[in-house]
């Protein structure tokens, strides 16, 4: 009897979900667009991907200028030369990270303090080029570099940025599904009387909720499959681990973040209040958990703190499985953290849930 009700409720909820274009967009199309866009922009096809504007007046190049220009090109800098007036206008536009000025041996490098990280990278490359130029001026002819090798953390070849990003977006999807589907739907049903209507029927509440959570699990799984298909087709990024392990992580993430959504919704007085509350949790979690970039540059205490959030270890496990073919058993400590979160949030959600 209950199995039949569950299946009916599940099928109906899924059908209704798939009729909502907005839901489809945010949970299926958006991650793919985000992935394809970011992976293209940030993968960096050129040698370094670093841009430099060199501002110098029109007259003929001195020997130093020529030598520096050659050395800069060798460093892989994407260089643009313009007049000081043009360069100044560009600088004021705010998009330049670094501006090299001067000629004939007298150079200064201006770094945009807003774009310090990018600027620092340019600075290092320009200084290298300048050293090379000086070494050559002093007669050095055999300047060598240390050979470099690109490799993924797990040592399975050179996975591009897309391989870092894809499991990140997969995890982010799980968080979004919990906060913006589970929590939002919950608070809406309570506010608009949907739960009240159900409360007058003999439908057991756990069946209704289980059906809704299962619909979300199906949707994130399909979304993950599409994301992986795009990753393989456009960026040559594919799952090197077990699909079963990936699915197990998706199930764990769904359980964890759906519970989170229900807990948060139980504290919100209505849809508007919930929107604020959900973003209050969503934005810092997204920033701190290493969805797009590693938190390497952040202070140590912040990194340790972020490691304790549920999404950080989940992403670590997803990346280990996806990129390095790791087994779930090897991800014990990460899974333990997510597991504790899931148990605590599930217990809180169960305790705080109210039909009416």
């Amino acid at each position, binding site marked *: *009897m209950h199995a*039949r*009700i569950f299946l*009916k*409720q599940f099928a*109906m909820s899924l*059908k*209704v979900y798939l*009729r*909502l274009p907005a839901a489809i967009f945010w949970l299926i199309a958006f991650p793919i667009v985000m992935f394809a866009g970011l992976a293209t922009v940030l993968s960096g096809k050129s040698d370094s991907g670093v841009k430099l504007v060199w501002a110098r007046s029109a007259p003929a190049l001195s020997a130093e200028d020529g030598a520096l220009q050659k050395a800069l090109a060798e460093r892989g800098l994407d260089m643009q030369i313009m007049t000081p007036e043009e360069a100044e206008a560009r600088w004021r536009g705010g998009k330049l990270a670094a501006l090299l000025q001067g000629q004939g041996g007298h150079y200064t490098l201006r770094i945009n303090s807003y774009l310090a990280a990018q600027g620092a990278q340019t600075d290092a490359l320009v200084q290298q080029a300048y050293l090379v130029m000086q070494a050559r001026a002093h007669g050095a002819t055999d300047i060598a570099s240390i050979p470099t090798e690109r490799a993924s953390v797990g040592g399975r070849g050179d996975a591009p940025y897309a391989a870092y990003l894809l499991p990140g977006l997969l995890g982010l999807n799980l968080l979004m599904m919990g906060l913006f589907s589970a929590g939002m739907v919950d608070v809406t*049903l309570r506010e*608009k*009387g*949907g739960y*009240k*209507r159900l*409360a*007058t*029927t*003999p*439908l057991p509440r756990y069946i209704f909720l289980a059906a809704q959570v299962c619909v979300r699990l199906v949707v994130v799984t399909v979304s993950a499959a599409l994301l992986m298909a795009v990753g393989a087709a456009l960026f040559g990024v594919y799952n090197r681990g077990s699909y079963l392990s990936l699915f197990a992580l998706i199930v764990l993430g769904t359980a964890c973040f759906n519970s989170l959504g229900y807990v948060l919704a139980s504290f919100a007085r209505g849809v508007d209040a919930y929107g604020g509350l959900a973003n209050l949790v969503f934005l810092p979690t997204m920033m701190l958990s290493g969805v797009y970039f590693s938190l390497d540059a952040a202070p140590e205490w912040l990194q340790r703190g972020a490691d304790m959030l549920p999404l950080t270890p989940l992403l670590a496990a997803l990346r280990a499985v996806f990129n390095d073919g790791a087994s779930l058993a090897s991800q014990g400590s990460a899974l333990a953290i997510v597991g504790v979160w899931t148990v605590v949030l599930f217990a809180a959600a169960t305790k705080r849930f109210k039909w*009416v």
Partner: protein
Amino acid sequence: METWAVEASGLHKRFRDVHAVRGLDLQVQRGEVFGLLGPNGAGKTTSMEMLEGLVPPDAGTIRILGLDWRSDGAAIRNRIGVQFQSTQLDDKVKVREALDLFGSYYPQPRNPDDLLRLLQLEDKADVYQSKLSGGQRQRLALGLALVNQPELVFLDEPTTGLDPQARQVLWALVRQLKSEGRTVLLTTHYMDEAQALCDRVGIMDQGQILQLGTPRELIASLNQASYAEIEFEGAAPDAAQFTQRLGIAVDVKPQHWAVPLVDPKSDLRKLLACVEELDLPMQQLHVRRASLEDVFLHRTGRSLRD
């Protein structure tokens, strides 16, 4: 079989600083249509939600079909049907799907096609519920309350906001429920609805039932069978002299006088004589039967629509 469909006594409910229901006593017989009539804020909805098992009362006892919510909740839910003022369904659920889905919650659901026919929604079966008109949506909500062939149906303000034609359709459905032997407990703030549909009416105000009986009994209790309404050219004049001469208190409205008639034949004759003597600029004279509205006005000093 237990005699009462609904038995409630001494119900109280307080929300923070609002004492919404203050000592409600109610007994609804099996097979009758009972109406709680009162203005918005009278405590009708809170009373219904207590009886529907949604809101626990602060004090008092409730028995539904002879059962107690605290021990027999599941059994009661299988035997009642509930329609709220507005029912929130997913926008993208189709009419037949909604009936089918709600039916699956019960052991012996009614066939959706039968319900569609009953509700006159056959041609809307495959339409998203969000595309229905107000009246059609209320009929669907009623249909959802009927999927389990309930013995007792709760209808909260079933026709509020509907146009007259849609109201008539719903009224016919409620009469059909009665003819099938089901008990109906409804709330309304339309006195014509209570008068047209209900076997018995409880007049409710400020969390209490002020008076209870058949519409006929309630109106008879006024001891005024009918009202004469006199309209004038322009605003209604001062009625002091007229009242004194006639010996009946006149209710002065902006555009007319309402004169309660205990004995229409003799009172009307006197009334016309007074109009003649005072040479009043009477333009029209209507005689209408007393209504539940008058009962409410009489009991509370306020109109239902205030």
